[in-house]
């Protein structure tokens, strides 16, 4: 994974000199395992156990209060007919596509703008990244006021420019404007973070590759399409995975900003899971939806990896 591992492969296995090689190595393995023990406990108890538990719960009638009872596959059989779930799934996929495309384009543009060291570049990078320091829930509340008619500047500004006329309810007026509000919020909050990841990828490209392209007389677009993009593939894959997974699990922005409305038009999948569990008090049904979502994500990630590996080989 890293350059240091490959350049010094033997050193870590070298036993301390004062003991015989075999006992020394065994002792060192024991010490290493001891250091890893807390990680193992946490991963086992708070990741693997709940992962198994959510599958088990999905096979049971599991009320929030009261005793669970095996009822498979009742929690799954209702899923195809669930109207709200279907519209939430469709909306979540639509939102994911929109956000992935827009966020990627904006973040890549920002990364290209600030990739070279120049006077002022530090200020620009910080300005773009700073929204990341505001928590996502806080950022959602910030935009709730920012886009509101009561204290927000947006409607005033747009009506001053003559673009809108009078009262506009951005976050709850229409399905489209509610979605646009959330998209704007996510772009503002995550563009700088995504930019930073892309920037590390840009900086990992050796300068002499660009040098060679310039000597060969490649223009700016050719350089970008034939060198920058292909060499950025691992970074781009990482960013796309993070963005799609994050968007498929969208919650904060819709719960706080649009409350899933108007008319459930911005209700995401995780909001449906939350409602099943803590409003309808049916943990089993919520677990069923979780397992289906989890399976969909695994398939999606597997496909993405396969496509990626084929392209890079």
């Amino acid at each position: 994974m890293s350059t240091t591992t490959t350049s010094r492969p033997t050193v870590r296995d070298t036993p301390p000199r004062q003991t015989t090689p075999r006992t020394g190595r065994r002792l060192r393995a024991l010490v290493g395992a001891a250091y890893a023990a807390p990680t193992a406990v946490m991963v086992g108890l708070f990741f693997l156990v709940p992962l198994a538990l959510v599958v088990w719960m999905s096979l049971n009638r599991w009320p929030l209060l009261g005793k669970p009872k095996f009822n498979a596959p009742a929690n799954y059989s209702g899923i195809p007919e669930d109207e709200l779930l279907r519209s939430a799934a469709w909306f979540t996929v639509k939102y994911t596509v929109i956000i992935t495309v827009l966020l990627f384009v904006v973040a890549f543009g920002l990364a290209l703008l600030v990739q070279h060291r120049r006077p002022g570049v530090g200020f620009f990078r910080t300005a773009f990244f700073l929204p990341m320091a505001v928590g996502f829930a806080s950022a959602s509340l910030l935009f709730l006021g920012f886009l509101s008619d009561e204290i927000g500047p947006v409607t005033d500004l747009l009506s001053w420019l003559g673009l809108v006329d009078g009262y506009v309810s951005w976050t709850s007026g229409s399905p489209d404007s509610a979605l646009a509000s959330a998209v704007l919020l996510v772009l503002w909050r995550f563009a700088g973070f995504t930019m930073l990841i892309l920037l590390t990828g840009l900086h990992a490209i050796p300068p002499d590759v660009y040098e060679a392209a310039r000597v060969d007389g490649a223009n700016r677009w050719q350089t970008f399409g034939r060198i920058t993009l292909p060499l950025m593939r691992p970074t781009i894959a990482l960013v796309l995975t993070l963005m799609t997974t994050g968007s498929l699990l969208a919650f904060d922005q819709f719960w706080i900003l649009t409350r899933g409305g108007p008319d459930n038009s911005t209700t995401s999948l995780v909001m449906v899971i939350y409602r099943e569990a803590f409003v309808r008090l049916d943990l089993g049904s919520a677990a069923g939806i979780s397992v289906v979502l989890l399976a969909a994500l695994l398939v999606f990630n597997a496909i993405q990896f396969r496509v990626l590996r084929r392209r890079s080989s």
Partner: protein
Amino acid sequence: MTGVGVKQNARWGYYVTGTALAILFLFPLVWSAFASVRTDTGFGLENYDRLFNSANGVEFRHVLNSVIVSALTVGGTLFIATLGGYAFGRFKFPGRDVLFLLTLAILMVPYATILIALYVLLGRLGLEDSLIGLSLVLITFQLPFSVFMMRNSFEAVPVELEESAKVDGCTSVGTLVRIMLPAVRPGLVTVGLFAFLTSWSEFFAPLILLNSTDKFTTTLAVVNLRTASHGSIDYAALEAGVVFMAVPCLVLFAAMQRSYVRGFTSGAVKG
């Protein structure tokens, strides 16, 4: 146009675009600070007064809860990720690679899908509606990034440093504390800062894992102001809440930006 002219135009374009975008990104932040102190009559702290003193506003208890959860999460993450990163980066033992992959796999299984199970599990462990339970969950979801980061940091430390300490008679723990930890400081700062930013402002996990209002973290209490208000929302008090939540993050971020960005980029490039 001469070559110099093109260059100058490009520089102008760079600064005009950069400045315009910077203003766009900074504007909501500046606006919320402004909105939080604007009142009917001018400027003042009345919005903060309503934030902290209205019927279902933010209480001292909520702020204290946030501080406790953040401290537990930052401390726990640093402790576990340092030991884990040291183990993965410097030792060979059976099961090492499997455990490391499992830790990274937490990233692939988004926690929203297993949080219901965690809710049940914490109940069985006697940790329902508890700040400790919430912190344990937050630590776990901080681990993939943190362990990865610390492993890379430890791998980058020259082996000679560790060996000379051993020759001088340092114990294993002594070597870790006195020799290795100072060498991986940028990594530690990055991991700690990330853990703080996440735990301080996390919303979904406390929403599910905490039930009683006196256990609420500040994020929950501020969002509660919006949820509790049917009809008209007190936007100005909400913006005061946003500023109150954001200020510690912005201050810490500004203070540690150097090591943060360095730790982040070195970790990512090597991966």
